């Protein structure tokens, strides 16, 4: 067991972890932050995507100790009470979420993209989300939602 100190969505945590624990296991099983999902545990589906010190990572293949002294943002950290983040709003409004299981990872991947590239083209959105699988939507409304969110965040409409 080793001591892991990390910040998640603004709160500081100190947990003891086994050396082979993943960040996803710490978030879900230790901290009960459940928006990152277990979809594959092999880094293929992206349902566990979170932002670690500004970088999008798949928490199921990220060793927990890599997050020591760092800051993690999950979907829970995006909205304030009664106020959705524009990406969340757009996903809701444009039907980008059906069963919802991939949605937390999708939104975090979208946020990572828009943080670095506030004005992405369709092709850039596709590339940025290509590591996140969705079986329900055919991605059409997801791509649309990211575009609309970008517009809104840039002060349009």
């Amino acid at each position: 067991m080793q001591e892991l100190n990390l910040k998640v969505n603004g709160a500081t945590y100190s947990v003891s972890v086994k050396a082979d624990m993943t960040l996803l296991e710490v978030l879900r099983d230790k901290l009960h932050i459940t928006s990152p999902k277990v979809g594959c545990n092999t880094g293929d589906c992206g349902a566990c995507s979170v932002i670690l010190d500004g970088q999008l990572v798949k928490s199921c293949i990220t060793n927990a100790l890599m997050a020591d002294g760092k800051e993690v943002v999950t979907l829970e950290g995006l909205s304030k009470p009664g106020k959705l983040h524009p990406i969340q709003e757009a996903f809701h409004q444009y039907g980008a979420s059906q069963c919802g299981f991939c949605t937390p990872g999708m939104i975090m991947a979208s946020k990572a993209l828009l943080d670095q590239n506030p004005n992405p083209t369709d092709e850039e959105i596709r590339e940025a989300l290509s590591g996140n699988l969705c079986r329900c939507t055919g991605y059409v409304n997801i791509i649309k939602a990211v575009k609309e969110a970008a517009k809104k965040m840039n002060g349009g409409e």
Partner: protein
Amino acid sequence: MTLVGERVPKYDGLGHVTGTTMYVDDHYIPGTLICKGLRSPVSRGKIKRLDTSLAEKLPGVAAVITAKDVPFNAYAGDWPVFPEEDICFKGQLLAAVAAVDEDTALEAISLIKIEIEEETPIFDVREAMKPGAPKIRPDGNLLKFGERDYYFTNQGDVEAGFKEADFVLEEEYFYPVAEHTPMEPQVSLAVPHPNGSLTVYTTSQCLYFHIGQLCAVLKLPFSKLNYVGATVGGGFGGKNDLHADPVTALLALKTGKPVKWRWTREEELNCSTVRGAWLMRIKDGVKNNGRIVAREMESTLDGGAYLSFNPYATTKHAYYAVGPYYIPNVRVITRCVFTNKVPSSSMRGFGVTPCSYAVEVHMEKIARKLGMDPFEFRMINALRKGEPTHTGSIPDSVAAIEVMQKLAESAGIKLPDKLMSMKSDERRL
């Protein structure tokens, strides 16, 4: 203000976009035991010895269960929770463990001693159908429909139809095995209560189809099982079989503790139900004017090892083998053959997806052979209002022609006036 017809965002959408929707795996109840399963490494064989004693002694293990722990050992027709003796597919569940954590559960699984007398598996439906083939199931390798080992739906006189035809086209098609691949794998959480009742949190896409089956396995009345779910991370037909629920329920009853089992993606891909492969042969008799006057279709579903939804898929395929066309003379035969593979069950399109594919490629071949425009060929054969399907039904709504017209218009294809003025509710010329 009326809402029907409006773009109302999803009722549960705010939960999805804030990450607060609770799927089964998101329920954390203190003291929950973790379940893992022992699965068969062979496709066919007999269990000679299954010794769980070492696993049971491992500190942290609360219970190990096998076939002898199941009050009524069959669901989805004839699928045992654990086989008593006969192993019928690779990946079949043989035993399950509940332990304080995943590592302990996995270690316990590795301590279960098993001896299997391996038998030669049958994979190929053609082999399985041969007379004298080893029987995978006690009543034979072909699914029985009453006295027959095939299902059929006929209309008219197919021999007379072929005589009337100017030419005949016969081809074979194959539709592969598919996995539903919902993003959420099978997960189950069973919580026991002091009065002997259970709450089972499930990924089932059909609570009421499953509650009867699960209560039967557990030999419990409905009043002792509150089945909780209906927030499912994708289904596509892959969550129409009980999968994990009987196991967590049995372990929860045995240990008196909540038990959770989340399948790995590998288990989801290799051990959950699939859409079985379909082999299809279509023989159509066609007149030079473009009318199909006879169709004979013979289809075989590779059903895998157990019944599950196979009878339904086999019959449904027979009902929809013609496509949205009127063919006066039809003979359809469908079969389900059992093989030593994971059971085939429901998947989006359920028996119909494979025949839609085969029929529409076949239609295209005939159109090309006739030198006729593919739109025209489909439209002159399309079902009209008042015409029966080959099952003998008169559908209440017929719009194949109109859908083709809309498609042509939308895709910028200019169809001749005689096709654009055709109507489903006008009689066939």
